[in-house]
């Protein structure tokens, strides 16, 4: 799965994007965030305050209980501030 990071999340993780194979126990967005947080300190730093983390799957905003099964691209970012 293609994983994109934006703004502050991108800066803390130090990457704009990467490819990650979903572990078999990861079903939802919430599971995926927990998986990343447990992976490395930089993900923990960027994502542990989950209320401030927003997610889009294949370019649609989704909630944390969204099932990732058919997702090709997930974007992880702080609340948007355009306009």
């Amino acid at each position, binding site marked *: 799965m293609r994983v*994109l990071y*934006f*703004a*502050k999340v*991108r800066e803390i993780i130090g990457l704009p994007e990467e490819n990650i194979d979903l572990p078999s126990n990861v079903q939802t967005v919430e599971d995926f965030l927990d998986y990343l947080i447990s992976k490395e300190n930089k993900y923990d730093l960027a994502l542990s305050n989950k209320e401030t983390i927003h997610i*889009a799957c294949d*370019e*649609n*905003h989704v909630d944390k209980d969204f099932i990732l099964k058919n997702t090709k691209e997930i*974007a992880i*970012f*702080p*609340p*948007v*501030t*355009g*306009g």
Partner: protein
Amino acid sequence: MITVKIQKEKFSPQKILKSAEKDKRYGALVSFIGSVREETNNGKVKKLFIEHYKNMAERIIYKTALNAEKKWNLDYCYIIHRYGTLKAGESIVMVITCSKHRKEAYAANQYIIDWLKINAPFWKKEIFENKSKWVEQTL
């Protein structure tokens, strides 16, 4: 008719407005322009950096315009939003809505900019003389 533009280059609101005014089908035109402020609570802004998620931003803005067009029966809707590095005073976003009567054009314009602020994937970072700070969402 809907036009959505997301671009790095500077734009001239006056030129865009002039071109929109040529269309004589509508009786009301409302225009909103959002610009880079020179000063915020954090100090004097040198530059504003705007990051975006290209495909999603285009899709969300277009969908928002389409909803507005249907709901308020708009004759014309033009939305432009910049990304990249902007200087204080430069325009970030412009929304033009045109309809037969003013109420529809006003309502549609506010709907579009409000929806864009909550949903369109853009992130602003204020750059000061000695520091920088990601802007936090204010609704």
